[in-house]
């Protein structure tokens, strides 16, 4: 018998999953409250006790974990031009599973430094300039960080000509040097930085977050949860040598505070009369909308889609909607009691809004340009119109009464014809929250993880352009 234990230290719950590596089945799952303030092992042990009641006493061949507890991996990133190196740095950090607490462009100001000192990040990613290009941005920022009274790991991943001066200035910080995130104009090179972020997460953050107490429990792997999910999505899309993947896909996780969107897709232009502009985008791309969520970020959804939109889709009066918006801002733990109560309908509209906004921000856009050679389209970001699969994970979707109606809001629509979202898709749902666990398992057992994901995801049906509500 061979078993693996996979642990997900979430901000609220610690979830454990036991996998039988021979039959390739999930033999049990359990969860308990995360106890990060005292000893994170306490909550884990409660969860393990509960798991044992399901699985009986079994010995695990290895135990691996991912974590978003205690605020997750909190990063600050800096770059020069907002659409260029700062954007490359942002994409790098998000793809590595980080939460970006601050993003700085151009030179740091005194106010920026005060903000950094008040709430120092787990990792600071400093970029700026192409190789051989602008040096002043990185060099001056390094000088400024030196004056701080706090210390944190810094990754230097900008103009290689600026690295020496930065390293000198930051001699008493833990500094690592990576290849430039944008070595030449428009070219993205973020994988080396992402590997470094992951290493630092293991070396520094795990200790700082009280997770080191679990070291005797864990075998080795520990990664930020979003990075585990992205890795599971990538595995599902691409497959392995032995097991085929399902092809390009989009993943959506509507959470209480944020909404994450993942795409594993090239997103290259399909038509001849399209010209691409802007930075290259990563094949495996993750974006996080910090103002879009079901409880802590209700206001962000409402302010973007409008209260009448929510009221129309929930069938509630404007007054009832206003009441829920204010109630939810006071009590984040409110949940619907039945599928058809008013709060459930309000949640349905909120989730629809979250999906609508987050996918529109993630997807590429077209702009029309009339030229002497006729109509030309300028594409920025990924063209996802031919992506045919959408994976939903996260509680708001799992408990939803009409999930396909929510999912439709991820599709291309005539109302926003320039937003390059999928035109039709099969919707799959992660009913047992296994994606993060499988992302962790994939570090050792890719084929097994992939086969379990393929079996566990529940197909809900197909949606297509035109049956948009």
């Amino acid at each position, binding site marked *: 018998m061979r078993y693996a234990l996979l642990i997900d230290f979430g901000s609220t719950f610690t979830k454990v999953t036991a996998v039988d590596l021979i039959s390739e089945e999930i033999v049990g799952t359990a969860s308990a409250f995360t106890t990060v303030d005292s000893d994170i092992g306490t909550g884990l042990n409660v969860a393990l006790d509960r798991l044992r009641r399901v699985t009986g006493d079994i010995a695990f061949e290895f135990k691996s974990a991912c974590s978003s507890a205690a605020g997750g991996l909190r990063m600050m990133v800096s770059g020069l031009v907002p659409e*260029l190196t700062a954007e490359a740095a942002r994409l790098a950090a998000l793809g590595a599973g980080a939460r970006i607490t601050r993003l700085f462009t151009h030179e740091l100001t005194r106010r920026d430094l005060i903000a950094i000192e008040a709430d120092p990040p787990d990792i600071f990613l400093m970029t700026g300039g192409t190789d051989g290009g602008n040096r002043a941005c990185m060099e001056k920022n390094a000088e400024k960080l030196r004056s701080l009274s706090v210390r944190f790991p810094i990754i230097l991943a900008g103009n290689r000509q600026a690295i020496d001066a930065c390293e000198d200035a930051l001699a008493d910080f833990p500094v690592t040097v990576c290849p430039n995130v*944008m070595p030449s104009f428009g070219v993205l090179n973020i994988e080396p930085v992402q590997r470094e972020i992951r290493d630092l997460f293991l070396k520094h953050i795990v200790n700082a977050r009280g997770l080191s107490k679990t070291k005797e429990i864990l075998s080795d792997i520990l990664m930020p949860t979003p990075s585990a999910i992205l890795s599971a999505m990538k595995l599902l899309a691409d497959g392995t040598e032995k097991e085929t993947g399902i092809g390009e896909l989009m993943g959506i996780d509507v959470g209480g505070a944020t909404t994450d969107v993942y795409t594993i897709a090239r997103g290259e232009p399909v038509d001849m009369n399209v*010209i691409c502009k802007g930075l290259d985008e990563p094949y495996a791309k993750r974006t996080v909308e910090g103002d879009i969520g079901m409880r802590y970020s209700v206001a962000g959804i409402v302010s973007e889609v409008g209260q009448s939109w929510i009221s129309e889709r929930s069938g509630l009066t404007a007054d009832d909607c206003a009441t829920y918006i204010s109630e939810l801002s006071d009590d984040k733990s409110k949940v619907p009691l039945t599928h058809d109560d008013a709060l459930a309908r309000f949640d349905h509209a909120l989730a629809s809004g979250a999906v609508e906004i987050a996918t529109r921000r993630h997807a590429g856009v077209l702009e029309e340009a009339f030229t002497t050679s006729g109509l030309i389209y300028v594409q920025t970001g990924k063209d996802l119109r031919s992506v045919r699969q959408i994976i939903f994970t996260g509680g708001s979707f799992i408990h939803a009464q009409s999930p396909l109606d929510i999912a439709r809001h991820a599709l291309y629509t005539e109302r926003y014809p320039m937003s390059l979202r999928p035109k039709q898709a099969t919707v799959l749902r992660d009913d047992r929250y296994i994606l993060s666990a499988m992302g962790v398992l994939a570090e050792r057992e890719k084929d097994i993880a992939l086969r379990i994901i393929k079996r566990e995801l529940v197909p809900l049906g197909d949606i297509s352009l035109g049956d948009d509500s």
Partner: protein
Amino acid sequence: MRGRRSEKMEQGNGKKLVIGVIGADVHAVGIRILEYAFREAGFDVTNLGVMVSQEEFIGAALETAADAIVISSLYGHGELDCRGMRDKMDEAGLDGLLLYVGGNIVVGKQDFVDVEKRFHEMGFDRVFPPGTPPEETIYYLKKDLGVD
């Protein structure tokens, strides 16, 4: 088209150019010829290709710490497309950066002396008429940037 960097940078003259075709102009061939000619002359070239906006020129010049921006326009709307370019560069901290323009930059057949004057007033350091050979632009770039 993505920016490509000169492979001859090590033995080049160390000066960096950002070049491209401004506005809704899709003339793709000439800018490749210029890229090649400038590179052969020892410049480190970032070619932004066609349909380049003012903001793209500026962003690229900032990140690459360019020594000059060379704008090409061949479809007659260059005057509209270039308006405000110098002001935006000033705003972005690129004040004083060498700025060239060339090609069929205005509509119809106009007296080039007038055209040149108008573009000088818009803040362009040098203005080249249609049919200018690359060697001439290279000559002025070297002169203005103090190369050999």
